[in-house]
């Protein structure tokens, strides 16, 4: 196979308390591809996404069983440093959540906590590059000291993307990144996502099936904590092999 | 290596934060130990029977008596007077701002009300002694310069915000569907308020009453200034009387060396005060938690 496996789940289970949220997930995600995770709400798609950078660790009583490998290394191994993992696996959230700081300060935060710059010029250059990569630079280059809250929703989300990529992650997780945005902003973000796959492996959770069809290379359909079907997006949307997938995609439930 | 250093720093910081948080435990322990120690010393010299049954409290006189009753009586009387004022006003205000006016107005009245609780208590003492008592004299000509009524009333006003704010919070927490249930049965607003909202919020409202009483019992300066510093076992609220707190102030103002029986009395009095307020506070806390659980 020409594709490199970046992420692999092996018999992966996740529980809140005793309640099973993910059941025996077996799943391979490929490098420099965009993989969409779709499914009705409560199907476990967000839980899976948040397992990839161990954001679920923040929740009391969250447990996992099985293996979740990134580059053949189980990220739930005892000696894995979560900080280092999250540096490698960036995340963009459902609602834009910029820090209550300046635009510059938002991007610089990650560089500062990881001490990833030599001097101010280097810091500035890195901030500039990431804003350019996130297609936001032209809109904000004169207002870098303005509060991030002064940006529009779509701009804020691109700022959050820039904030995630500035620390050079290998993987970017996106949790319904456009669900709170208008169609124009959504189009811009989708275009950006397609461009970003050149450098990053992208996993995106979305409840918008057209979006999954538009941006992703692969799609995974989750239902009630199980991975029902996983294939190339074109195949999933034109000739799904599972009846449930077909019913969901044609809008019979969800 | 660097990662390890960060983890060590995190642990150290967490430890320091924990130490700060546990300081409050040491404060409580300190209070109990200090009070207990001197109180035990006190009871080595005075029998507990005398303390609880003697009708006079005169530790500073030649003929010493150590009956807590006059102080306790004064404390309870002034507190009761204040609660009559605080509950009638506080609860009415709470119902009014919770059920009858717009939220925007409510958001203004509440903080303004809080000013009543911000005024230093010496100021209220001054007000009770030099303004309220002279006015009361027009109604009750034989009222003394120092009396229980005037500081009781003024203390009541100080406590209104506690009762109004807490009761309002409790009524606000009553879910909308309970109210709608009342209206659906054809009840009018008064009936819904008194028949549904107040009963549903009752434990929260009671918690505010109890906290109010506890505050009144512990209040010091108003009663010291306006009720007098002469222990007096009477139910006549127009007469001077000395509360537990006022007695502690009275002794503290003089130069009472540690180790003397006079010195020990303030700790025995303080212990009485602490036990009273502690029971009330715990009771109030329990009522409040019960209420919170119900409407979570």
């Amino acid at each position, binding site marked *: 196979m020409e594709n490199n496996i970046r992420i692999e789940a092996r018999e992966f289970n996740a529980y809140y308390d005793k309640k099973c949220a993910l059941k025996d997930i077996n799943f391979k995600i490929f490098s420099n591809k965009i993989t969409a995770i779709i499914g009705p709400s409560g199907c476990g798609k967000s839980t899976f996404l948040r397992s990839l950078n161990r954001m679920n660790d923040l929740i009391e009583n969250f447990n996992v069983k099985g293996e979740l490998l990134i580059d053949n290394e189980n990220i739930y191994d005892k000696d894995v440093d979560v900080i280092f993992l999250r*540096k490698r696996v960036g995340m963009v959230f459902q609602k834009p959540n910029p820090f209550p700081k300046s635009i510059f300060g938002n991007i610089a935060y*990650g560089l500062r906590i990881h001490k990833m710059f030599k001097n101010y010029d280097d810091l500035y250059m890195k901030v500039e590059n990431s804003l350019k990569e996130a297609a936001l630079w032209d809109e904000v280059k004169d207002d870098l000291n303005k509060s991030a809250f002064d940006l529009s929703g779509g701009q804020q989300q691109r700022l959050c993307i820039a904030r995630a990529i500035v620390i050079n992650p290998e993987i970017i997780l996106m949790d319904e990144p456009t669900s709170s945005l208008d169609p124009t902003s959504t189009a811009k973000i989708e275009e950006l996502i397609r461009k970003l796959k050149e450098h990053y492996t992208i996993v995106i959770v979305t409840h918008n099936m057209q979006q999954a069809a538009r941006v992703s290379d692969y799609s995974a359909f989750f239902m009630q904590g199980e991975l029902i079907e996983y294939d190339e997006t074109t195949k999933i949307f034109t000739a799904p092999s599972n009846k449930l997938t077909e019913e969901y995609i044609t809008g019979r439930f969800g | 290596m660097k990662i390890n250093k960060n983890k060590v720093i995190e642990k150290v910081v967490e430890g320091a934060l924990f130490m700060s948080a546990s300081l409050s435990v040491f404060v409580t322990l300190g209070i109990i130990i200090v009070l207990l120690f001197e109180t035990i010393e006190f009871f080595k010299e005075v029998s507990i029977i005398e303390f609880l049954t003697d009708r006079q409290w005169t530790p500073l006189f030649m003929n010493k008596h150590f009956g807590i009753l006059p102080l306790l009586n004064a404390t309870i009387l002034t507190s009761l007077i204040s609660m009559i004022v605080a509950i009638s006003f506080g609860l009415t205000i709470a*119902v009014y701002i919770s059920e009858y006016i717009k939220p925007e107005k409510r958001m203004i009245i509440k903080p303004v009300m809080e*000013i009543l609780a911000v005024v230093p208590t010496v100021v209220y003492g001054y007000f009770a002694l030099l303004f309220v008592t002279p006015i009361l004299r027009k109604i009750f000509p034989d009222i003394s310069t120092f009396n229980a009524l005037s500081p009781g009333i003024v203390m009541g006003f100080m406590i209104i915000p506690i009762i109004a704010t807490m009761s309002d919070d409790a009524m606000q927490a009553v879910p909308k569907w309970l109210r709608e249930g009342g209206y659906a049965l054809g009840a009018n607003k008064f009936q819904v308020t008194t028949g549904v909202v107040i009963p549903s919020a009752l434990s929260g409202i009671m918690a505010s009453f109890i906290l109010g009483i506890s505050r009144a019992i512990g209040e010091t300066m108003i009663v010291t200034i306006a009720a007098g510093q002469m222990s007096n076992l009477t139910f006549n609220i127009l007469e001077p009387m000395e509360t537990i707190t006022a007695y502690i102030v009275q002794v503290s103002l003089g130069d009472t060396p540690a180790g003397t029986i006079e010195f020990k009395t303030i700790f025995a009095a303080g212990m009485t005060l*602490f036990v009273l307020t*502690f029971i009330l506070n715990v009771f109030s806390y329990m009522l409040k938690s019960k209420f919170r659980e119900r409407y979570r």
Partner: protein
Amino acid sequence: MKEKKLINKIRDNFFPVAGLLATIISLGILFVLIIDVLKDGYMRLNLQFLTNYPSRIPEKAGILSAWVGTLWIMVLTALFIFPVGVASGIYLEEYAKPGKMKDFLEINISNLAGVPSIIYGLLGLQIFVYFFKLDRSVLAGALTLSLVVLPIVIVATRESLKAVPLSLREASFALGANKLQTILFQVLPSAFSGILSGVILSMSRAIGETAPLITIGALTYIAFLPAGPFTTEFPFITLQGLKDYFTVLPIQVFNWVSRPQKGFHSDAAAGIIILLIISLFINFMAIYLRIKFEKYMRRK
């Protein structure tokens, strides 16, 4: 039928009328109180009142030692409670895991908030004055008052931290920040005005506290000042003042109220005017910060 209507009318209007009346009377009392002290004390309000020591002659008495003492006590109390109160709040809100230990700490703090302040005076008397031999000094006074208001700061800190949205913390964690970095660089700055409002609120409580300071033996008549913190010699700062005796504004007022002479009552009223101005100002500052904080939080 008509009679029933009348009853209904009274019933429907009971709470609106009684509630309005109760509100007006309560605030009216406040108004009357302010007018009363202004009437009694305005003639004493002049510069000399601020620069004179207390005196046997009411007309010459002033509040110099009182306001300087209050300033000392306030500054020190703020210095003590800010770190300890905020640290406790952070621990309880961010670090403590739900369970018996946390419940215990919580109940304990809520109980401390209800302990009458005069009890803290007894504690301060035994621990600070006698055990640590601080005597009835500025330091003993400030430490005692710190314990009185500490629960207020802790509770306010927790409320402010609670108001910081989860999304902000998640954003920071997702970038690989650790807990300490997240709290230090994101959560605390966001909660800062709320926390500050709590600290200031506790100051407005502390400035009026009289009983605990009388209990530790603060003097009611004092005609000197604690040694100032600045000196002409190296290192230009001295902590000598911490060991000096002191009095504070409310104690001075209490002293004057307790005297039979009318002249001193005017002094008391004038002292009250100053005290009220300061404590109301502090309180409004706290409310202003609170409102600012809430607005800021809604923006998120």
